[in-house]
């Protein structure tokens, strides 16, 4: 009832083809439609570039500073990935800790929320003081910003367990560690995946914001630097170009995380119920 039965002739190739048709083509089609609507709107209402530059202007800005954007993409992407990985790691560890008792949980949660609600500008000096400017500082900001969803989801996944399973472990005198590693942790995998999807996007924003405050030092420019620069110069088309590239980065990281989740979740979760026959 779970995996749908294979259809008549289903070779790997045709499966890949249908995957392609269903998951790659529609977003592309919609993307073209959105571009056209955007262009149409800009032309029709005569929207001035300082309010919203048309897509062609943005595209040509992307092309003209291609090299710079590529470098920035890689640099910011690197920081985001490192910050995100730290979030996943630390978030999971904190989830493990929080799952150990309601007392720890209810005492610790406010500090986790603090991480989320503290405006980064207020702690940026502290972060820079501790982690230094450049890569370390940027990663730290990305980490702080993307940590909370991991904590929230890890904790939920480790605490919402079928009571029968819990009883089973207790009856076998499972130790705290065994309950953690053999029950809570695997049980939390689907939640961790949901959290990771949220966090991955936040890590990109975090890296960009981190670059606002920490930078990488002269000569190395991330996307945050370019966004800051073009904002100051009121170069809306270049700004949008940088924003587009940031979004691309976000979507890429998100996509990779989703793909990994799907693979991992094939073992865990009930399958998505979409349009069965």
């Amino acid at each position: 009832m779970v995996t749908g039965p294979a259809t008549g002739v289903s070779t790997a190739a045709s499966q890949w083809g249908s995957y392609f048709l269903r998951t790659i083509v529609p977003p592309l089609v919609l993307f073209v439609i959105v571009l056209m609507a955007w262009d149409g709107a800009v032309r029709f209402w005569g929207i001035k570039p300082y309010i919203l530059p048309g897509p062609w202007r943005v595209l040509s800005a992307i092309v003209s500073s291609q090299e710079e954007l590529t470098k920035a993409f890689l640099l910011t992407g690197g920081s985001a990935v490192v910050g995100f990985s730290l979030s996943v790691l630390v978030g999971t560890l904190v989830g493990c800790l929080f799952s150990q008792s309601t007392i720890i949980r209810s005492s610790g949660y406010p500090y986790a929320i603090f991480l989320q609600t503290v405006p980064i500008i207020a702690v940026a000096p502290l972060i820079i003081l501790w982690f230094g400017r450049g890569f370390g500082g940027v990663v730290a900001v990305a980490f702080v910003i993307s940590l909370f969803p991991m904590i929230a989801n890890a904790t939920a996944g480790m605490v919402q367990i079928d009571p029968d399973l819990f009883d089973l472990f207790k009856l076998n005198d499972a130790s705290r560690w065994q309950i953690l590693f053999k029950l809570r942790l695997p049980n939390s995998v689907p939640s961790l995946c949901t959290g990771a999807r949220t966090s991955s996007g936040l890590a990109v924003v975090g890296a960009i914001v981190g670059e606002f405050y920490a930078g990488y030092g002269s000569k190395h420019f991330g996307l945050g630097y370019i966004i800051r620069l073009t904002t100051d110069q009121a170069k809306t088309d270049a700004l949008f170009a940088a924003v587009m590239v940031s979004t691309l980065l976000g979507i890429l990281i998100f996509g990779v995380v989703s793909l990994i989740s799907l693979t991992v979740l094939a073992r865990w979760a009930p399958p998505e119920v979409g349009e069965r026959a």
Partner: protein
Amino acid sequence: PMNPANQAGEGAVKTADGKTLTPVEITLNWFPEAEHGGFYAALVNGYFEEEGLAVTIKPGGPDIPVVQYVAAGQTQFGVDNADKLLLVRAQEADAVAVLAPLQDSPRCIMVQAESGIKTFDELAAKPKFTLAMNPGQPFAMYLQKKLDLSKVTVVPYGGSLVPFLTEKDFGTQAYNFSEPFNARKQNANPVNLMVSDLGFNPYTSLLITSRELIEKNPELVQKVVRASLKGWRKYLDDPHGTNTYINSLNKEMGMDILDFGVETLKPLCEPARLPAGQLGKMDPAEWTKLSQQLVEMGALEASQSAPEKAYTTQFFEAATKPEK
């Protein structure tokens, strides 16, 4: 809801004594500070009301797109700097400067006296020096072009004074009447290197409006300019009432910093070279120079640069013409 028509100017406001006032909104480019004092003075001392205007001054904040607002008609008037105006105009925003209360730019680089730096050249030669400034701002581009900063680490300006206070060999972008004051309050010993000394000196705290409003309602613009000018004169002479008002708006902006601000502002508004009574004047040569500098540093394309369209002196001239 893009680009709503300029509606703020329509509906009228009645005062208690039955006068009908025209509502006007002025948007600032930052939180209320001494650099906006003249406009507040016009408000506090009733100069706007004398002109039949009910003015609201809206504080701004970081990255507030004042010129864009003005061009889009979201606010009738705005306060922003000349370089910013030229850059946004290049994006087809037709906003126009009508009054320039500050002749000289308060923009400076603030360093610690302990660093031993007294000039820009010493700064550029200092090993392991860190300079915090927003790289895209024209003054920063100008510095990078004018000086050889290859030895200096340029980092983004994060809006916080803390790094300046904690590190000796650290410089930060500043306005010479606010950051140095705050730094001194934290027992630091700052030295200001004025960017204008290097030759980059855009008008600051310009009063800006849209071409559309100038064409549709020049009388209104005239009234605002006249009252603002009066306000600025008053503020430089007798700032106390105004500062009290700004302080009442915002407890964080203490009287001491405001009073310090006015003192610092006076030479910026009325430098020695300016003939008496010409407070608020704009010099076409300054605009051309600024425009050329922006083109040279690559912030502006030559084809987009039309400095003569960015300002008009007609309202200033009318306001300062001796009464017939």
